[in-house]
Structure formats: C-alpha cells, structure tokens
C-alpha cells in the first residue's frame, strides 16, 4: 500500500519537528525557498498533474498559476479545512496527525504565487484539530518557519486559524470566503473566481487540506517521481474515508487506479459477517450510489468521468441489504434541506419539495405521479442550481432512481423489501 502521505501521520508525533524532518519534512520547503524560483515551483506543480482533493478535481497547478498571474500586493492563501461532507474524515487525520505537512504546503504555495497572508478555515466541529493547528503554528513561528524572513530568506508569511460554526455550505470556496469576511455563508456567483477576486476582493488561492499536504511531497520527490504513483490521468494517491458495512473502516491511502471492488474486498476486508452488498456511495452524501455491477469502476478521473461519476471528497459508504433505500435517501435529502443556504431557487425550494415528496413515499401516501415530480425537481436542482451544493444534492436520489427504481415503486405500493421501515416486508412481484 502506498504511504507517501500516511507515513507522516503514522510515523511522526504531530508537533515534533525533529520526527517530521527525519521523515522528509521541510525538504520540499527548503528546496523551494533556497533553490527554486516561484515560477519553477508553479511549473513543478503543474507538471505533477495534481488535482484538487476537495471534490472538484480542478488542476492545482493551474489554479496556482492563475493566482500568481494576478499583480496585487496582497494575496491570500486559504486552506479549506471545513471538512463537512458526511462520511468524510480524511482531512481530520492530516490535521491532527501531521499539521506541519499542510502548513508546509501553504508556505510553499504562498511563496510560489505571491501570497502574503494565510488562513486555515476549519470546521467548528473539530475543536481538537483547531487546537492542534494553533499549537503547530506556534511551534513553526518559534522555529522560524512562519513569520518574518522565513528560513533566513526575504520571504515572510503568516497564518491565522478561522473557524466555521457548522454550515456545510462553507466548504464551498466562495461561501467560505464570505464566512471569513464575517458574512453569512452563501455562495457567490462565479466569475469572478477567487484566484482573480476572492477574500476582501483580493486574489485568493483556496486549496483543500489533502491537496496542500501533497505539495511538500511533490517538491521533495519531484513531479516525475510523484507521477509514478497513480495513473496517467490521476497522479498520486488518495486518502479515502470508509464507513458502513465493511470489516475495516477508517482512513486509507490508496493509489489512483485501484477499483472500488479492491477497496471494498481487499483494503477494507469485505463486508461484515452475514451481510450482503447493496450499494456503495462514493464521495459523501453528495455522491452517487453505485450498484454491485459498477464496482469495477476505477479510482481514476478519466474512468469516473466516462461513467459520469464524481469522486468527491473520496468518502466511501458501503450499505448492505438491510438498508431501506428510501430511509437512506430521505435522511440524505433532509441533510441537504437543512444545509442549503437559501440563495438560489432550485436548491432553496427544490430541497423542500424533495423531502416532502420522499415523506409521502415513505409514509405510503405517494402516487406514481409524485415519483415523476420528484425526478423533475431533482433534475432541475442538478441542472440549474447556482453552486455545487444544489447541483450535487440530488445525486444520491437521481442515481438510486436510476439503479434502484424498483424500490421506489415498491414503497409507493406499500412494501419495503428490507422490512425495516414501517411498511410490510417482501417484494411486490408483477403487481
């Protein structure tokens, strides 16, 4: 199993600079500050083919280049640590296991794009991570890695920790920026994109924790070596958070190119005793629910795109056949109804109608027409919402309507095959 990222949080104590350095820590930063020009760093990151690990899979080097191209005396570097996607807990492992790694990534990013100030925006539900980061920043300031004249160069950079208070939408980069500015978390229309005009109107680079954690590794081993991990379209490794009915749950580092089947049956040791696979949700609550016959899908951006599936944050939830599909989808829909910011029509109104219609289905009072309306509303949300939240909110619904439509029809007729909801058990055949 690959361990280019995990070795740091497995082998080092979180606040020990000594152990961090023994494992290769700060090699990337030393190289960047002492041996490379900013553009050389940008070229290296572009050449590494690193793509954003937060869910949107945008090429990181390109985002850096856009920010670097802006001529502005003030530029911000934001680490998006608002890990709010349900079932996702891989950033937490980095934040608490090896905070130096992502901070090193931020310092390199700032040096490369001309960043003057950094913010780590961390979700309010991670108090321990927040404390760890503050301590880490304190240690790094004392040791000359942050603050004025870093490592005896002319480069100065400082980082502040800011915290969210539980709004899922604040993981969306423009809502996150609004939140740092002190406004309610609501997505902005794009353009302007943050690299051009972000925090307080200044060019702003927003990267996910895992993305930034990859940077020191790329710099120290070199882009070519980095690309030996993974596939042609997807270089490096991915931290996945696995939960549900598998034997081994938790965070694993896997190389791109591995199939979902390998993850479930090898990395995670297969399903728990006596349970039968029903579906796998990839990418958190905003992700697709895939049936067994799609488990040959590879963790590879090209393969995923060709199947119209998004990797999202890399969360994997394995559901067994005791899961009532409608109960699961209803819980998912309620989550999004709660988390919509309310700015655009499709998401604000659509989520409400979706939960109401699902309520009808679950309570046995829905009609076949309701199912049609449900599909329509879900599609309107996907195609017309302003930001990723509304666009992705109906993904689980739309994919299960595609792969598991029978269970919707069963519930409309008053049956649930799992027998766990209040409806009768058993399948309806040819009624």
């Amino acid at each position, binding site marked *: 199993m690959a361990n280019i990222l995990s070795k740091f949080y497995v082998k080092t104590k979180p606040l020990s600079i000594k152990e961090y350095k023994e494992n290769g820590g700060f090699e990337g930063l030393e190289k960047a500050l002492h041996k490379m020009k900013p553009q050389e760093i940008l070229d290296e990151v572009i050449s590494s083919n690193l793509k954003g690990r937060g869910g949107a899979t945008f090429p990181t080097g390109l985002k850096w280049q856009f920010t670097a191209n802006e001529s502005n005396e003030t530029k911000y570097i934001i680490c998006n640590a608002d890990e709010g996607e349900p079932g996702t807990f891989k950033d937490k492992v980095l934040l608490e296991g090896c905070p130096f790694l992502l901070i090193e990534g931020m310092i390199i990013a700032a040096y490369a794009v001309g960043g003057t100030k950094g913010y780590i925006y961390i979700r309010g539900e991670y108090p321990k991570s927040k404390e760890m980061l503050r301590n880490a920043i304190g240690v790094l300031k004392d040791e000359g890695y942050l603050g004025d004249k870093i490592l005896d160069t002319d480069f100065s950079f400082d980082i502040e920790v800011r915290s969210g208070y539980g709004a899922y939408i604040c993981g969306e980069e423009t809502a996150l920026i609004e939140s740092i500015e002190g406004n309610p978390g609501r997505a902005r229309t794009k353009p302007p994109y943050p690299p051009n005009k972000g925090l307080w109107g200044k060019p702003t680079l927003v990267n996910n924790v895992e993305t930034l954690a990859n940077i020191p590794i790329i710099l120290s081993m070199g882009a070519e070596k980095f690309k030996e991990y993974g596939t042609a379209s997807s270089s490096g490794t991915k931290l996945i958070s696995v939960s549900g009915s598998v034997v081994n749950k938790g965070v694993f580092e896997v190389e791109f190119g591995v199939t979902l089947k390998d993850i479930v049956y090898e990395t995670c040791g297969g399903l728990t005793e006596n349970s039968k696979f029903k579906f796998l949700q990839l990418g958190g609550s905003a992700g697709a629910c895939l049936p067994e016959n799609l488990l040959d899908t590879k963790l590879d951006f090209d393969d995923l795109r060709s199947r119209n599936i998004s990797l999202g944050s890399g969360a994997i939830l394995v559901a067994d056949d005791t899961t009532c599909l409608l109960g699961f989808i209803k819980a998912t829909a309620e989550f999004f*109804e*709660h988390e919509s910011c309310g*700015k655009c029509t*499709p998401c604000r109104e659509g989520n409400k109608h979706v939960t109401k219609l699902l309520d009808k289905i679950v309570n046995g009072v829905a009609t076949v027409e309701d199912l049609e309306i449900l599909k329509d509303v879900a599609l309107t949300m996907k*195609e017309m919402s302003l930001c990723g939240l509304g666009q992705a909110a109906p993904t689980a619904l739309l994919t299960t309507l595609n792969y598991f439509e029978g269970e919707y029809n069963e519930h409309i007729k008053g049956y649930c095959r799992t027998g766990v909801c209040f409806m009768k058990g058993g399948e309806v055949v040819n009624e």
Partner: protein
Amino acid sequence: MNKVTINIDGRDITVKDGATILEAAKELNIQIPTLCYHPDQSIKGSCRVCTVEVEGIENLQASCCTLVRDGMKVRTNTKRVRDARKKVLELIIASHNDNCLACVRSENCELQALSKELSMKETRLEKIVSNVSIQDDNPSIVRDSSKCIKCGRCIEVCHDVQGVGAIYNLNRSFNMEIGTPLGKDLSEISCVYCGQCINVCPVGAIYEKTDIDRVWKALEDEGKHVVVQVAPAVRVSIGEEFGMPPGSILTKKMVAVLRALGFNKVFDTDFTADLTILEEGNEFLHRLNGGGTLPMFTSCSPGWVRYIENFYPELLDHVSSCKSPQQMFGALAKTYYAEKENVDPKDIVVVSIMPCTAKKAEAARDEMIDSGYQDVDIVLTTRELGRMIKESGIDMISLPEEEFDEPLGISTGAAVIFGASGGVMEAALRTVYEVVTGEELENIDFVNLRGIEGFKEAVVKVGDLDVKVAVVNSLMSAKKVLDMVKEGKADYHFVEVMCCPGGCIGGGGQPIPGTNEIKRKRVEGIYNADKKLALRKSHENPAVKVLYEEFLEKPLGEKSHHLLHTHYVDRSN
C-alpha cells in the same frame, strides 16, 4: 477592450469581453426572461429563470451571470431550456401567495408577467406558503413575506444605495427570509421609511400602508372641509399609472380629477415650496452672516431627516429648521387659510399627494401640530392616487384641464423643480442671488446641478462671495457628505440632500417601475414644466408676497418661527 464573437441561436454577435450572455442576447433583440435581474442593480444570479444552454457545458447556465467566451455557442429557445425555466418558475410559484385578485401589484407584477410570458399552466407542486403575518406596525410600509420571492433586491437597495441596512437575509434554506433584526417592527429599528424597497420589489411583498379609505371617508363627510395639496414630482409621474409615458406633464388634468373626486379645494405644495425658499434662503443668509453652523443641509426630505436623526444626531445643527413644504402647507391651511375662508380649522382635513412613503411618517410626527391640530391629516402616495382615480371610474386623461385654487395653489417654476435632485438648491440660488445682490439673475438655469447622479457640486458667485454648494441624492451619497463634515473636510456652505435616488421623482411612493431610465424622463418633465411657467423665482410668487403681508409679516419672523420651523430628535438609540 477586447471583443469576442459568440453565436446565439444560430446568429453571430460581437460584444465586448466581459459581457454576459444576457447582454449579448439583448443586442440581438433576443429576449431572455429574467426575474431577480434589475437594470440598476448588481447581478444576483439567484432566481435562475434566465437559464440557457451553452454548448459543451452539461448543466444549464444562468445567462445573467455567465460571461461570454470567444466561440461560445448558446441556445436560448430549445425545449430543454423552455421546460427548465417553467420548472424553476413552478418552484417559485409553489411558495408564493398567489392571491392575485387581492394583490396591490396585480397586473404590475413581474412574477405574474413572467408566468404569462412562459405560458405557465397549473403547478403540480404542493403549495408551501409562509404563514408569517403581515408586518405593518409603522405609518408607511407593509411587508408581506407570503409574497416574497427572495430575490434580494430590497436588501441591496437598503444597504448599498441607502446605507440604512434595516433588512437582512435571515435563516437559510427554505426558511431563508428577508426580515428585520430580531424580527422587530420597522418602527423599532433604523428604517427611514424611504420606500425604495417597494420600488424594486418585483411582486407585492412590500407596499405602502394605504390610507385611501380614510380619504374617501373624509370626502363623504359633509361636516368636513377637505383640501388637498400635490407635491411637485407627482404631476410628471401620475400619468404612468394610466399608461402615459414617464415625464408627461399632467398638472392641470390632475387638478381636474382631484376636483372631480370631491376635494373642496385643490392646492399645490409648490406654493409652500416657494415659501420654503424664502424661509430657508433667509435662514441660510442668517447663518452665513451671523456665524451659524455651516454647511446648512436642506430639510424637505423626511427620509433624509430621519436618517440623520438615526445615524448622525451630532450633526443635527446643520439641518435647516424649516419644515418641509408639506408640513408648512398643513400648518398654514389650518391657520391662515382657515381664517381667510372663515372655516373652523377643526373641520379642515388636509390631504397630501406625495411621491413618498416617508411623508406618511413625517405627517405623524408628534411635533407637527403647530396649527393646534394635526397639521397634515392624511398622506397618499402617487400610486395610491392612481388607484383612487381608477376606483372612482373617472377618466382623468379625457378631463378638460383646470387650474389650482387660490391662494395656496399659486406657484413658480422654482417650486416645480423641488421634485428633482438639485431643484431645491437651484431654486434657492435663484432667490438668494437676487436678495443678496439686488440684481436680476440672468441665467437662472443651474444645469450642472441637475440630473440623477448621486453627488454634484458647484461654486456660485453671489456678489463678493463664492458660495460652494453640493447636491446629493440617495442616503449613501448623503453619508459621504456627513462623513466629510465630521472629518472637517466639507467646505460647502449649503448642501441639498434628497433621500431618494434622483430626488422626489424617484421617491418610494412613485409609480412602479421607476428605473433610472424612467427617472431621467421624469426629470426632463420637471424642467420642462419649470420652463413653461411665466414666474420662475420663488420670491416673485404673488401669493407668497400676500401671505407675508397679511399674515406672516417677514421671513424668520415670529409667526414663521411658530408655524414653519421645527426641531429634530436624536433617535440614535
């Protein structure tokens, strides 16, 4: 700036880089439906009605906030696009209280118009309408959340144009609503009742608190002597309520219709506007020569007065002590006029027709009882007058023209221009110049003070003195001047402030829509009306001269002090 060429519905169009698809389509005369979009506001991109297909992008795109790219191919009229627009509209309608039959904005509602435009049929979605009660515990403005479509226009105008910030987005998701801090009534917060939120609301979620029935009741009460005064801006906008182009001057038809409605006397606020110039002009000279507080701010705009009372009470000494023309009229109607006509002032009902919602609150101020009674009894907006006329069945447009009654109906061109930003200053300068120099002012048109721009300034030579003046409209512009004064950076002598963008022609009681384009036409109407009059300087108003001879004696005299001047209140806490 670079140009890019895109293709919309099979036709190429070259536009400037940075344009939106919506703007490019407009150049091809392709009408993309919109709802949250407003020509004078920032792009919100929230309603998603203006959706189009862009080749190569899987999801539909909102054309108002999608920028053109060279070679872009756009489809605005496919089945997919038409269906999508209907579906998003269906979502909006599902949570909209569509009791159109009893809605003040029926037939002038952007949602209703859009529904028609998109051929909406019945909605299949369950109706989920907010049952928050109507909020109207104040003299001016009613808010009905069951009609709100959450476009955010009212918030933008309140924060960015007026700098008041009385309303916000509260909560999120389906519970997101537009409301006041802690759900308080408008009367408990810093709202100035300007009504600009009403003017930009696409539906009937915000409107003026109507007083039409009180007027009907007074008109039918034989024991009452009901007099009406009409503000300058109303005459160039009332026509819009009847399909006439903005800026049409309907002064004399308006007089005729008011008389036909049953008012005992039809008077003109322009009369007291001329009077204001004499009082305020003299107050200005008094401050200038006597070392009084300068710059002096005008005081005719009640939204502005409430703003400075709320936010800058430490600068209240700068505000002229003159009452607004509306309130001067009320005080004189129940004293001078009552004596002259031998009517018992307790039987007189003074009705105002104003372009303004803040005037309703002004008339209700505790101190506005100098006649011994409430000086102004009822205030209607221009829109309410339009509704009253429609209700009466009288065809205003076909009525023969009539003249205002005397004496409170006599006025000059200087009074008419009170209706547009810059007008009060121009009128004051026409008079101050001649009073100070004793010479006739040759060019009386101060064109550089005119127009709807928010901040204008000029230096005018009056005798030996260079008088430095500023003219601001919208409260955000007023705030700039106030901050300059606080920092000691404002070397103006005299500043005209109008609360509403463009001045009273853009008031919160004016016909809807009232876009900048329409405001410019109303301004044109105002200056045309001024030009047509024989008398164009306030001090030449013969009826005002008589008023001083018979009653007031002299500007700033004892009676003036009692009836025409007022004081202000610190409302900052």
